[in-house]
């Protein structure tokens, strides 16, 4: 247990230590400043603008920016959807896989466009190398870049004043992809490939087993390059069906550490980007403090539950819950990954969440149900967290009878409407989706576990999709027309409603003057405020989900006592 605690502390300390320089670098990228990468990448950047016929200084109003995001996502959707349907007649398909059926193709496309990466597919038996690299890898990059771009828009809303515009989407998308995502992905690819994550266009390898000389297939493909961005972009959709539990996607303790680290580093760094951009580092520190506090609490519960609340089997040494976990990760690194992947809206797994203990699985669900704001998705986590900050400022303002303001911007009714759309879309869609699935004919036949744990599988599935996470209690049979279609629609709604709301919120904030803070201004960077923010986050999460959690994991826990 002490090595596990040491591992967790080292992980978090290294995360913060590297998030600071990366956050400051991302700020330079956002601002269009010169960075150490500029000499190499500026010519490429200029070439891209020339090809698409856009000027980076062509500032967009909120409506145009939102339409640009939607248009880009629409064409991305159409391309990926068609690619999956017709992959059977396209090259780079050494396993001769057929086209994906229409409802699975719809679900997978919606899932990758929305940065959810829910896996109703199993990569090695469903998708060709062409679909993986031109389809999934590309959306892994650009859906992440869209999230970060929208965060930039919101940050500009706070730092600009009496302006109508919020930035240029094509420039934001290009810069984030070129200067942030690709360089990091190259580093991570090489690191994990050194450990044995495969990277080849060769077909699957067959050999004979040692004991019985029967056939064993080693599935191959260009995996490392896709796994790198799958982790960094908080995407999470595996190259292989078993995701990062599969040894060829995550073979060693080192690859596991790198992948786990990659999935939190950008969301953590963006907190420092925010502090730098609003010229008040403490604001960023407050947000990351709140995230770390919630993260550590959840991590502690998951780790203790997996370590000490595992059932005892007769004749077996009680050494924690190893069902669904790889030996090389053990209980410690599997719990740390479980907390990380659900805190961030990543959704990659290195163990099967379905086989976690009742309370361990519940905490993973609850981290998602908080709205994916404890680190959260790249960009989307922080704009979601800022929505909670504004709600907290608003509630605090009501309590003391002052006009609420945040970072010098007075918060008005329109702003609060946008904030409500951002905060309420995920829980509403989670609960509507779960309710619909529970009532759907034949729902019971999709489940792998029975009783309360069976309901947990349904709740987890819709929690995951309605928060753009993508992990699953994977025993449940999710590749059905019903879950593929409802899930696909939910993933799109929960991605784009908050995005549009964020852009319009930013536009409205950008128009406002910045008022000087006075003695009466509520400080948003001290511990009192951090405590208040944590309370609001937990209250909203608990109010929305206590009833359904009681029917699922809580009942599961008590019936197995």
């Amino acid at each position, binding site marked *: 247990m002490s090595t596990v605690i040491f591992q967790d502390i080292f992980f978090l300390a290294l995360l913060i230590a590297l998030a600071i320089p990366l956050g400051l670098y991302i700020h330079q990228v956002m601002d269009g400043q010169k960075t150490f990468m500029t000499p190499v990448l500026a010519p490429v950047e200029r070439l891209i603008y020339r090809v698409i016929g856009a000027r980076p200084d062509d500032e967009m109003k909120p409506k145009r920016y939102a339409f640009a995001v939607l248009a880009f996502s629409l064409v991305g959707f159409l391309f990926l959807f068609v690619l999956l349907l017709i992959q059977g007649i396209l090259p780079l398909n050494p396993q001769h896989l057929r086209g994906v059926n229409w409802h699975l193709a719809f679900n997978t496309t919606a899932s990758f466009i929305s940065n959810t990466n829910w896996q109703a597919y199993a990569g090695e038996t469903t998708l060709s190398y062409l679909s993986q690299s031109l389809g999934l890898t590309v959306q892994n990059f650009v859906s992440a870049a869209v999230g970060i771009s929208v965060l930039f828009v919101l940050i500009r809303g706070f730092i600009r004043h009496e302006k109508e515009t919020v930035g240029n989407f094509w420039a934001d998308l290009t810069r984030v992809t070129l200067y942030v995502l*690709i360089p990091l992905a190259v580093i991570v690819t090489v690191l994990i490939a050194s450990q044995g994550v495969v990277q080849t266009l060769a077909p699957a390898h067959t050999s004979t087993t040692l004991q019985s000389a029967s056939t064993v297939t080693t599935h191959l493909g260009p995996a490392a390059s896709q796994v790198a961005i799958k982790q960094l972009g908080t995407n999470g959709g595996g190259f292989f069906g078993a995701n990062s539990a599969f040894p060829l996607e995550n073979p060693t303790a080192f690859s596991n550490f790198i992948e786990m680290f990659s999935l939190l580093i950008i969301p953590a760094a963006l907190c420092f980007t925010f502090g730098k951009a609003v010229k008040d580092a403490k604001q960023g520190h407050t947000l990351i403090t709140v995230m770390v506090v919630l993260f550590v609490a959840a991590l502690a519960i998951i780790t203790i539950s997996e370590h000490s609340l595992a059932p005892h089997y007769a004749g077996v040494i009680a050494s924690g819950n190893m069902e669904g976990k790889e030996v090389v990760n053990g209980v410690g690194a599997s719990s740390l990954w479980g907390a990380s992947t659900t805190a961030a809206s990543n959704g990659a797994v290195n163990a099967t969440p379905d086989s976690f203990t009742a309370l361990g699985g519940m905490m993973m669900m609850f981290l998602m149900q908080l709205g994916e704001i404890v680190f959260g998705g790249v960009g989307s986590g922080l704009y979601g967290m800022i929505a909670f900050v504004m709600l907290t400022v608003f509630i605090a303002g009501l309590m003391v009878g002052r006009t609420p303001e945040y970072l010098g911007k007075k918060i008005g009714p329109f702003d609060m409407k946008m904030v409500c759309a951002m905060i309420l879309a995920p829980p509403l869609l989670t609960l509507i989706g779960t309710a619909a699935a529970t009532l759907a004919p034949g729902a019971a036949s999709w489940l792998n576990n029975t009783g309360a744990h069976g309901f947990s599988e349904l709740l987890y599935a819709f929690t995951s999709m309605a928060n753009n996470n993508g992990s699953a209690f994977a025993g449940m049979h999710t590749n059905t027309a019903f879950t593929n279609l409802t899930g696909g629609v939910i993933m799109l709604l929960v991605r784009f409603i908050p995005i549009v709301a964020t852009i319009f919120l930013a536009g409205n904030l950008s128009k406002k003057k910045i008022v000087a803070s006075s003695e009466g201004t509520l400080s948003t960077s001290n511990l009192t405020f951090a405590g208040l923010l944590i309370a609001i986050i937990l209250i909203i999460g608990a109010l929305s989900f206590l009833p359904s959690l009681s029917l699922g994991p809580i009942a599961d826990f008590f019936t197995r006592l």
Partner: protein
Amino acid sequence: MRVFLKQLRPAALILLVMIVICGVIYTGVMTGVVSLIFPQQAKGSIITITLKDGTKKDFGSELIAQKFTEPKYLIGRPMTVSNLGPASDAQKKLVAERVQWLRSLDPGNTAPIPADLVTASGSGVDPSISPAAADWQVARIARERGLSEAAVRATIKRYTTGRLAGFIGEPAVNVLKVNLALDGLL
């Protein structure tokens, strides 16, 4: 609506550019670079052994578990993915069956069994077991093969990896490599 339609052209063009950069160039260059510096890992860490007669033979990936059921071999984890709740009745029944089977291979061994040997992994092809799970099998393997326990232990130790830097991850024994070595192939 007109504003929206006007975005479609740059949207389609930048998507094409991104497909070329992130899909073709990035994936292609990474495949080239990785194949060059880590050729063995890039292609699945396949174990190829030159046999005594000079021919080369593949024994599969060192990262993918193979099924071992004979008592002379080091036996790995159950090769299924259950997704069962750990406290469910179905899971308890499965574990009890595995315990019974392992004990039937070595009736004299009454020591409790390490948990990883009777629980399924997340991948179903976990190539490793814990050192404790390997240790539990040493006496049986030594007896079946007429080797000393020390010799079996030494072979196991050779294919055991420790925690990274002493605290990251868990120690693991590569089952396939140990068995290849026991058979005198590795």
